């Protein structure tokens, strides 16, 4: 997130609306769909920016350069790496949306496996595939200006970042843990009250602490919070529950460095 400091949003002047482009890499499309899910604000957003390249939603695709580019998905093929390098050149501000673009996503589970063996499990002729051994975040290859976490991102994160960019201020996305959001909404702690394994203490807020409000422990889909002390969290739990914590850490943000390190502490 250090990129904020040296990258003042370079959006358009008053003469025209800033242009927005959305790009897809290896992903489920869920983060792009979150843009369309902001029904209440969709028309307003559409009026404040000129969405000139969003193939998921429109056949009208204009060439760059673009003021703002949103990148969904991880880099998993040589072709996609070339695309990302080109997109970086084309975009004033590059914003990654979601766990795949930010840390490689669930498909980064392949990073600790043999990709050729994996391909052979799924495809009859894996030799036809041209894929990287690892699923990597955009930031492994290019400078990323802003990141919106989540699997998937939600409307709050998207609207906050778009509004901040349009008004030339720094986005205000939380980096503290999900625990804070549980307290804010008055949800009883599932760890303390029910002894449920929960990654909330080590997971970044932003979702609104959904899982504990559904009697379920957090499974870490927003990635690591600013401070991760998984060893201390794990000390409360038995082996079965520790396995559940590890499943979450080795989940949708498996390649986020703080979660990678945390697995061995649990």
């Amino acid at each position, binding site marked *: 997130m250090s990129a904020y400091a040296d990258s003042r949003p370079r959006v358009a002047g008053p003469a025209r609306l800033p242009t927005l482009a959305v790009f897809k890499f290896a992903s489920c499309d869920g983060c792009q769909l979150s843009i369309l899910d902001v*029904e209440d604000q969709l028309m307003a957003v559409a009026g404040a920016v000129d969405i000139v390249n969003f*193939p998921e*939603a429109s056949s*009208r695709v204009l060439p760059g350069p673009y003021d703002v580019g949103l990148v969904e998905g991880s880099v998993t093929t040589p072709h996609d790496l070339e695309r990302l390098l080109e997109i970086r050149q084309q975009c004033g501000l590059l914003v990654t949306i979601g766990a795949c673009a930010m840390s490689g996503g669930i498909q980064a589970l392949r990073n600790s496996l043999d990709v050729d063996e*994996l391909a052979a499990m799924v*495809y009859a002729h894996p030799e036809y595939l041209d894929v990287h051994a690892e699923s990597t975040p955009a930031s492994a290859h290019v400078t990323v200006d802003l990141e919106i976490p989540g699997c998937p991102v939600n409307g709050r994160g998207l609207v906050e970042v778009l509004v901040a960019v349009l008004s030339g201020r720094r986005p205000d996305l939380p980096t503290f843990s999900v625990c804070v959001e549980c307290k804010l909404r008055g949800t009883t702690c599932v760890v303390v009250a029910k002894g449920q394994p929960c990654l909330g203490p080590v997971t970044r807020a932003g979702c609104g602490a959904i899982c504990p409000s559904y009697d*379920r422990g957090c499974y870490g889909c927003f990635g690591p919070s600013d401070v991760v002390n998984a060893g201390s969290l794990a000390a409360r739990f038995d082996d079965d529950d520790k396995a559940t914590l590890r499943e979450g850490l080795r989940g949708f943000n498996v390649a986020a460095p703080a979660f990678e390190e945390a697995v061995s502490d649990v």
Partner: protein
Amino acid sequence: MSETRTIEVGYLARVEGEGSLRAEVIDGQLGDVEFNIFEPPRFFEGLLRDRRFTEAPDITARICGICPIAYQISAVTAMENVCGVAVDGALHELRRLIYCGEYIESHALHIYLLHAPDFLGYDSGIAMAADHRAIVERGLRLKQTGNEIVRVLGGREIHPVNVRVGGFWRLPTRAELQGLATELDRARDEALETVKWVSRLNIPQITRPVEFVALSDPDRYSFFEGRIRSTEGIDIDVSEWNDVFVEEHVQRSNALHARVRERGMFAVGPTARFALNHEKIQPVAAKAAAEAGLKPGVANPFESIVVRAVETLHAVEEALAIIDAYEAPQTANLAVEPVAGVGHGASEAPRGLLYHRYEIDDTGTIMEAQLVPPTSQNQLSIEADVREVLRANLDKPDDELQWILEQSIRNYDPCISCATHFLRLEVNRV
């Protein structure tokens, strides 16, 4: 001297995922047609190995951001199948309810934002809103109602967190359901208006009969109940999918596509469901379908948008009926202990049948997984439509031809993110 026209769509817009289309016309005759999917593979079947059986619903949801409920329900029913647990009664009904939400939001999204612009000559739903603001806003409200059902029952609209093996993590409160009912009452009129609106669209006339395949149940319009049936006489248990269908590897292409072993292509999705299950659809939806002139066994793929609207109305009505009859079950979930074996699950995703098969061991570790998404099964039918549409429109200029070809692919609401098994598909002969 021969004249070659090439129609290329480099990046198919308004579909979920990355695909392209290329067709050649040589001396007025149709040549090669390639429907090319360059969505990068993510190897989900491989990634699921060695994970716990309870993780399958959340992991497979990430295959598709637009139909996560379909993945979750197919996964949990497969796991309950292998473990010998029947989740029925009110828990079953709640699963139907969240599925109604996915139908409403996915169908409304496709009708209003992705497909209708084709019929009316716009690049997008947003561009369409400039001239038809009230209509687009109606579509967005309808979609929001579907999202709201998924949000209340699932915790959030995309990749909901509340569906689990054995049932749910937590039951909805009476007040939450009542809030949904209020919205659904309003949405009923909007869904009815949607059927009327799409039935008045200028629908291209193409006839291409195909074998329709869907889950079918004697008691209801199936979301995840009953047997797999077809209009050509298939009538099998879900566990027999691999006996009757096959994912084939075509020569000179690394594309797998599903076909009926004995016959070949088939189609899944709203039109298939309506053909096989129309007698079970909610009466209001049946009436609207009749008034729209829709007959079961629709052979014009462009009429799928009308079927989708009829199903949206059905889902609204069904959701209201479920809430009306709801009596809270004793517990939010049944205990499911792992049993070594093979389990099968299938559900009707908005875009068609989604089949899951898992082998797990007695500790609940997944040994093997097979996932067959609807777009994979529709692949052959999509190409056959493209050829038929091309043949009927060869006299049109390239831009018009390209427009109607894209429109015909969108008839299937294809989800290419799901169907990455289908890389670089080539069809070289007519």
